[in-house]
């Protein structure tokens, strides 16, 4: 068929019907295990060629944590525009917490493989073997596929995700934040990223750190990464010729939050996080000349089949 991308997985000979995958995934259907294997293999070939710091052209729309909230991801695309017409950069944390991490990640991955220069994915702290065993992705894979095989495919693939992105040479994008071990983008480029997220060090910090209204560095109450202050951000931006650091990692009730006179922004793209936080979400659109606009959106009200959303289990003290 014209326009269809297809290819053979060299190992297993399973064809990659990416357009077919997209139709099914957009309906909320899960792929078969063999299809996931082929998709991950093909995605690996693409990601392995990408640098630690992706070079992304504007215009681009930047999205923060999605956390398996598949129907809210559909809402995000309604607000920001469909792929491939809109170019997207997702800042990690595609999985865990929400109930549809499998569908969410497979959709984003298929889009990446189908349109490698229209969808960019960087790694979040939840793209990790250890964290996904605690926060839901592992359990969801076992429930939906009957074994941990798909979880292994995905977590092996996570090791190939880039650590950050640079948009238009001026906007540095990372999941968490800065590291006391890193003062230049070149130092990020020198990291060997193809490993599980370490417990400490530069690669860990990039995915775990948080900005804080203070000066200097402090230990993070998360137990990994650091807190970094406005002076650190100013210095990093100045050293690297940046206008802005765009990051995610922290729930923001208003969807986005600027700090340090607009030198850093947190973008959060999971509305009504965990189905209980009551927050709105946001995406950040950068125009060709790097003007930025936020689009705020709420949680989706209906699922793809136009039925009321299933009520998830809730955690409150009762």
């Amino acid at each position, binding site marked *: 068929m014209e326009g269809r991308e297809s290819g053979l997985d060299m190992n297993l000979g399973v064809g990659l019907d990416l357009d077919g995958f997209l139709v099914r995934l957009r309906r909320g259907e899960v792929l078969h295990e063999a299809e996931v294997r082929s998709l991950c293999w093909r995605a690996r070939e693409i990601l392995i060629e990408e640098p630690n710091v992706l070079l992304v052209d504007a215009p681009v729309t930047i999205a923060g944590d999605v956390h398996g909230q598949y129907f809210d991801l559909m809402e995000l695309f309604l607000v920001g525009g469909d792929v491939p017409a809109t170019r997207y950069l997702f800042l990690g944390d595609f999985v865990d917490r929400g109930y549809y991490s499998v569908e969410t990640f497979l959709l984003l991955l298929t889009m990446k493989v189908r349109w490698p220069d229209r969808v960019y994915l960087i790694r979040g*702290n939840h793209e990790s073997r*250890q964290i996904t065993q*605690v926060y839901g992705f592992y359990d969801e894979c076992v429930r939906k596929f009957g074994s941990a095989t798909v979880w292994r495919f995905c977590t092996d693939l996570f090791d190939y995700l880039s650590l950050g992105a640079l948009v238009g040479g001026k906007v540095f994008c990372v999941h968490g934040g800065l590291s006391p071990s890193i003062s230049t983008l070149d130092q990020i480029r020198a990291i060997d990223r193809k490993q599980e997220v370490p*417990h*400490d060090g530069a690669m860990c910090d990039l995915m*775990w750190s*948080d900005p*804080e*209204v*203070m000066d200097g560095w*402090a*230990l*993070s*109450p*998360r*137990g*990994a990464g650091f*807190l970094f202050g406005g002076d650190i951000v100013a210095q990093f931006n100045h050293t690297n010729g940046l206008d802005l650091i765009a990051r995610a990692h*922290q*729930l*923001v*009730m208003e969807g986005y939050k600027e700090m340090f006179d607009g030198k850093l922004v947190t973008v959060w793209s999971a509305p*009504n*996080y*965990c*189905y*209980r*936080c*009551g*927050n709105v979400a946001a995406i950040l659109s950068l125009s060709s000349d790097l003007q930025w606009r936020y689009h705020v959106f709420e949680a989706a009200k209906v699922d793809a089949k136009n039925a009321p959303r299933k*009520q998830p289990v*809730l955690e*409150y*003290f*009762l």
Partner: protein
Amino acid sequence: MAIFEATKKFLLDHQHIAKVQVVSLGCGSDSLFWRLCADTDVDSRSSYFAFVEIDFPDSAARKAERIRQDALLSASVGSLETGTDPWEGEILHSDRYILMGCDIRDTGSLMTRISRVTKRRLPTMVISECVLCYLEPRTTDMLTSKLVSHFDDLSWISYDPVGSEDSFGRRMVENLAQRGCGLPGIHRDLQGCTRPFHNAGFCTVHVADMLTVYNMILDTNQRRRIERIEFLDELEEWNLVMKHYALLWASNAPSPTPPFDFTKHRTESRANISAPHHPYVR
């Protein structure tokens, strides 16, 4: 844990000095009595304290059955007394523990039955853990005023959801309502929580959200113990949830001794909070 610490302090403050009473409203399957008996600091054998637990008759009956079937649970309760008067309606009764089946919304009946099994002059602590939020405000008003009028030396510790007006609170109320769980007694803010107690005549009322209690009031060792049990890194959500639960302590005593220093306040910078034990880090 805060309720355990507060009750333990209440017991220890009076240990070997006076007999005291603890009345737990809407006790459910709470194990507070047994945890206190098992605590090495608490001299449970001297029977200086009487523990009265109250819940709906069917809930209390299930709890009684569970206690009777378990040797350890029964041992702490002690020898059960049988008979009807004056313990009529009590489901379990020993010299230190009473389990009562009663709908606390029927405040008249409740007070009659509480009066029968307690002494109004003894120092008494009332506990309500996620109970007042389920009551209509006028029922809480009646409960607080009747209890504070009845007991000469009364302190009350209460734990409830709070903050119904912001997005998290509105979503919590909606989510629970969709599951048939109404919260008619939830207050919009901490100040609202104190009103029934001030109105009833309690001289001293303190309230704090659970984030404050956890970070400022519980000691570091207790927090480290909790943090070692389960790794938690998503602090924004934790902070949000914890801010929507309130711990209140009230007393009608002339010289009250609160279980915690509710006046402790620090700025909320996360840099002030000591880094938790990270299970993956050496």
